[in-house]
């Protein structure tokens, strides 16, 4: 990159670069670096939102965190959500892309139907789905009772609520992965299939021998992006179940929010934030390793 640097540089030339990166760096420092550092700092104090005087606590917040069963249960919920939502978000997206690829007239409509939910705000999505799950007069229970089944109070039943959130999430966000797959599919040269046609390959063979293997890298990419996105779950759960029933769906971000803002415990919330941060970094580093490896494979 910096091969053709002239050795003789004026002062202006040397510092001109900072003019370009300056605005970004300023914002980066103020709104990303500083809170990252001050969050760590706060985690050693009993800082309160209420503004009462703070005291240095040393590692007390951290000790409390490791002993706090709610931290672990909300972390577990986060992982359960991730494990439940990631596979369907990959598989259904793939199925959608395979179905919608080369469908001609239907194409526009399908792309609209599959991706439209993604452009809706979380609140709109959850308002609609809370209504759909409503016992008594919601759509899902209306269909269940019409079919002679018993009603399920989806959002208030411990082992159903997370499933309900996952279904909503799949409906909402699968469109993005669908478009990623669609782009990958459209990147496969037509000649590959023409050659297969000449060899007399069936549609089935083309799917399993050509298409799916060529999508492997895309699948890995989508799976990892999805994994990280799912770990950061907050919006839907906060809006649909508020973490209930009996905290069965409360994710770690919500526990941070509750401690920091609802219970005013900024210091303690900072400690939990940092532990979660560490988990995200580990996942991201693994992801990076995976990809720097798989890139060479496909090259």
């Amino acid at each position, binding site marked *: 990159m910096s091969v053709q640097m002239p050795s003789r540089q004026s002062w202006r030339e040397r510092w001109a670069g900072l003019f370009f990166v300056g605005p970004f760096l300023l914002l980066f420092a103020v709104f990303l670096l500083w809170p990252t550092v001050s969050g760590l700092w706060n985690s050693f104090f009993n800082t309160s939102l*209420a503004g009462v005087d703070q005291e240095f606590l040393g590692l007390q917040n951290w000790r409390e965190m490791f002993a706090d069963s709610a931290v672990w249960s909300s972390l577990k919920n986060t992982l359960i959500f991730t494990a439940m939502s990631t596979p369907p978000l990959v598989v259904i997206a793939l199925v959608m892309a395979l179905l919608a690829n080369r469908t001609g007239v239907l194409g526009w409509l399908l792309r609209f139907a599959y991706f439209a939910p993604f452009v809706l705000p979380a609140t709109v999505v959850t308002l609609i789905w809370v209504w759909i799950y409503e016992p008594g007069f919601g759509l899902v229970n209306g269909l269940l009772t019409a079919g002679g089944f018993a009603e399920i109070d989806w959002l208030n*039943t411990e082992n159903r609520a997370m499933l309900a959130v996952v279904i909503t999430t799949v409906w909402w966000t699968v469109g993005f992965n669908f478009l990623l797959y669609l782009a990958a599919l459209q990147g496969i040269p037509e000649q590959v299939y023409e050659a297969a046609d000449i060899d007399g390959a069936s549609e089935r063979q083309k799917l399993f021998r050509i298409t799916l293997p060529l999508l492997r890298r895309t699948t890995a990419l989508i799976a990892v992006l999805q994994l990280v996105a799912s770990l950061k779950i907050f919006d839907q759960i906060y809006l649909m179940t508020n973490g209930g029933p009996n905290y069965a769906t409360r994710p770690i971000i919500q526990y941070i929010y509750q401690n920091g803002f609802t219970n005013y415990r900024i210091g303690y919330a900072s400690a939990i934030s940092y532990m979660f941060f560490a988990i995200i970094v580990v996942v991201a580093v693994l992801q990076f390793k995976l990809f720097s490896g798989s890139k060479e494979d496909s090259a």
Partner: protein
Amino acid sequence: MTDGSAPSRPRRRAVLGGLLGTGALALTGCSTGRQKARIREWNLFGGGDGARLQQIHQQYVEQHPDVRFEAHTLAWGPPFYTKLAMSAAGGRAPEVATLHLSRLKGFSPTTMLDPIPLDLLNEAGVSESDFLPEIWKRCHVDGVLYAVPLDQHPFVLYYNTEICAKAGLLAADGRLKPVTGVPAFLDMLKAVKETTGKFAASVETTNPWRMWWTLYGQLEGKFFDESGQRLILDDDKALEALSLMAKLSADGLTPRSANYAALVAQFSNGEAGLSFNGEWEVTTYQTAKLPFSMAPFPVLYDVPQFAGDAHTFVLPHQANRNRADTKATVEYIAWMLKNSTEWAVGGHIPAYQPVIKSKEYLSLKPQAEYRSVAPNVLFDPDAWFSGSGAQLQNEAGAAFSGVFSGQTTPKAALAQFKAATQKLLDTPSPV
């Protein structure tokens, strides 16, 4: 477009006023340059209460053209309180907000609220003698007045008069025959269930705190010791209350699972002939033209106690509180109290005693039917994590909702609740 132009006019004026009166404002804090006092009010009233408050506010605005008044309703419970605390921490809080009296101490009044200026309140024609002494005392923290009570709102019994007439539960005067004790209570519920064919009563199973606290209170159960640091819950009494709740749903007298919306819906559409709830849904049922009336919640055990709370007005902490705005705000509070008959129509028992004694209020039906319980309103336990919509109620909701749905036994639910409460006690107080 209308949105952009309307607020911009006063704002320009405010800027001008600010320029002209900077010196005076800084020194005396009085409103030399400002033409209009500004009041932003935040409240947590949805549903019927919300609609009624809007009407009352409309009257207020019509009678006070000299005030820039702006009211906002935020979602009830934690969302409202979290936002209010965050705005007070952020220094840009509204001039006035509603607050449950049970939340006062936990809201860190010394840092997040501004004291109510007693002189201004008296000038506006409201004084200590206008309230029940017990309530007035509760509005103070460390001897300083931080809240002005608007009402009290106990847990009550709603009954559908048509259904109850059919079930033979009405007396000659058309009122529900009073019942006391568990067996009589169950008989009444069974009779209603037979008539509706579905449920006897609608309850909020997802948050049964009010019901449990009422029953436990009627058993004379205690919660914290004098110091407020130690949990002294009486297991037998707590289990008695929980077992009764479990029995109600097991026998199909109440739904196994119903959130607040369902509680209202089931009473509205006649699936339930009774409803156990706070008294604030009067407007909703009247709008729906439901034939109903209300009564105190039956005394099932030893003493009359009814879970409840009081709505108050508070002044959230502002970094730069303006005396003129504060004066107008206190006048607004006084106006709201004096006109609280209108508020009582929505179901609440006014805190302002001159209204309670007024003919207008006494003639309200069914709103005046349960006013006798006001002295027996049982407030939530006293702790920073307690009060309406606070953590303790959430923990109770989390633990006890399974008792209705049959997912947990009363014993397990109580153990979970006690553990959660102990954990909260062990948590260093942030206020």
